[in-house]
């Protein structure tokens, strides 16, 4: 017989009280683990979705704006590019130090050209990269799969009165309309999208690139580092992170984290109060027993130890159970939160178990102090 065993035996005797004491911690930890786990997975999922959403770095030729004027009379201005980008630059971008963080590098070319009698802007990109570069595009018909096919923006299709299966001519060549874009509200609505090779031919500028869109995998993303490295790889290029996207990612994730932390804190606080109330009630109920223990020579520390072991057992078991339940709940409800590949996060479970144990022991401090301060005589009464 030792204090640990004494505590355990007492718990077994008062099962319903032990269950009630543990219930608060169980619910608190289960909620904490479930929310933390879901939040953590949502962070990953949001990040993943945002990464899939598109590029977050744009690489374009460095340009300088020249103002033209005569005396005080402004005659407008023009941008003068210091260098040009070429398709070969894709390899240089893809070979930076953080190349493992780069998901895709897509070259784009823009050119104005006549299409069936209408002057429209052409956007060229590798037809194989279309799904990567613009995954949110909705298309009636099919996307561009090969050279000789075009995709018409909604406004361009209306202007040309063409639809999937139709043909347009440009540069003395016939192009098949593979599909029509649903309205996007962007400039693409008025464009003709084709394979980059076709647009380069139309522009009579083989190998030319107007800009690159770089999608960096940005979980713990060192965007600034990637920007700097691309800048070093292409000294004549202007490399800019799309700050808004990065910031919105951070804000979304932070909001999720704050929500999870707030809810978990409240539930854990309630759990801690439940421990305090039930253990305090237990001390009240066991006043005489504590008096007997004091009478047979238990020191203050031994009484403390007894109550801490009791609460420790309950807290540990209910925390473990709560953590397991939280993990299971998070796994089951993950698809409802848009998490496509639910996983098990061990860190929230470990943190939750530790937090439950600490919380339970903290909740036992006031009752333990009260128990240790009990006068043995008043406790026993019968003496």
């Amino acid at each position, binding site marked *: *017989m*030792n*204090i640990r*065993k*004494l505590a355990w*035996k*007492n718990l*077994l*005797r008062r099962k319903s009280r032990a269950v009630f004491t543990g219930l608060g911690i169980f619910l608190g930890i289960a909620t904490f683990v479930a929310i933390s786990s879901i939040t953590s997975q949502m962070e990953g999922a949001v990040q993943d979705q945002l990464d899939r959403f598109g590029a977050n770095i744009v690489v374009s030729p460095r340009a300088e704006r020249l103002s033209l004027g005569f005396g005080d009379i402004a005659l407008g201005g023009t941008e003068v590019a210091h260098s040009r980008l070429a398709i070969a630059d894709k390899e240089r971008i893809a070979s930076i130090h953080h190349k493992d963080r780069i998901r895709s590098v897509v070259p784009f070319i823009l050119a104005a050209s006549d299409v069936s009698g209408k002057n429209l802007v052409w956007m060229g990109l590798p037809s194989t990269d279309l799904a990567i570069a613009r995954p949110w595009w909705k298309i009636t018909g099919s996307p561009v799969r090969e050279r000789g096919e075009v995709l018409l923006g909604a406004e361009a299709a209306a202007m040309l009165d063409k639809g999937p299966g139709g043909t347009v001519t440009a540069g003395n060549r016939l192009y098949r309309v593979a599909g029509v874009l649903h309205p996007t509200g962007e400039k693409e609505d008025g464009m003709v999208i084709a394979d980059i090779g076709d647009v380069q031919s139309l522009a009579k500028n083989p190998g030319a690139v107007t800009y690159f869109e770089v999608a960096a995998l940005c979980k713990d993303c060192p965007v600034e580092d990637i920007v700097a490295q691309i800048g070093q790889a292409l000294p004549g290029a202007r490399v800019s992170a799309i700050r808004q996207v990065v910031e919105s990612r951070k804000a979304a994730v932070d909001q999720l984290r704050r929500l999870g932390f707030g809810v978990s804190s409240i539930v854990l606080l309630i759990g801690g109060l439940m421990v305090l109330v039930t253990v305090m009630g237990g001390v009240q109920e066991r006043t*005489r*027993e504590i008096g*007997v*223990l*004091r*009478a*047979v*020579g*238990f*020191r*203050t*520390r*031994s009484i403390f*130890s007894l109550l801490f072991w009791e609460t420790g057992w309950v807290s540990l078991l209910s925390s473990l159970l709560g953590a397991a339940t939280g993990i299971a709940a998070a796994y089951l409800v993950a698809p409802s939160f848009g998490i496509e590949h639910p996983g098990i996060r061990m860190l929230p479970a470990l943190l939750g178990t530790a937090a439950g144990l600490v919380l339970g022991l903290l909740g036992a401090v006031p009752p333990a102090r009260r128990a240790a301060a009990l*006068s*043995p*005589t008043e406790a*026993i009464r*019968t*003496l």
Partner: protein
Amino acid sequence: MKIMRAGETMEPIIHLNGVSMIYGGNGTRATALSGVSFDVRPGEYAVITGESGAGKSTLLAILGGLQIPSEGTVRIHGVDLSALPSDGLADFRRETIGFVFQAYHLLPYLTARENVMVPMSPERVSPGEKVERADSLLAAVGLDGKEDRLPSQLSGGESQRVAIARALVHDPPVLLADEPTGNLDSATGEQILDLFSGLNGRGKTVLMVTHNPANLARATRSIRLRDGRVEEDRILAPLAV
């Protein structure tokens, strides 16, 4: 063997000098003990009697270091109890005093053996040694073979024997008993008193609070309290040393 006569000197194991105990504050003061002084020598079997409210239980609580008197000094086994802090008193109780209560106060969820081992719980003694000590004490009080029974499976007399075994676990020189036969029938009560006599015969100093004058038959001394004062202090039998 030397026979001590009344008035002969011997170093007391318990020394009370002017002990008073006053409960409450202004307006609600209640005097439980007033100027109680006496000595108890090692090996004495003193029975403390008195009407309800005479201060018997308060006296026993003070003797056991469960309460500190409002006035006066209490020295037991050479230790001034009023000078000890709370944990010092707990150590003193564990090493010097064995308590036996009227209501046994066994822990209902522990077996007889485990109840006897309770005072040893905080100690770093091997489990085997604890079990061995508990079993030998249970055997000494006549409970051989009932070590694994819960208090609910024991009779009143057996429960009190377990309580006595628990009180003896640290081999204390002083046993304090509060109406140990109060909840027992007369035959069982006699057996318990025999047990106390036997322990006294083996050198334990016994102080027993009782209402029952029949308990005087085995005692060597009778101390009667009345209204918190010692009304009568009588030597009933010579003290063998």
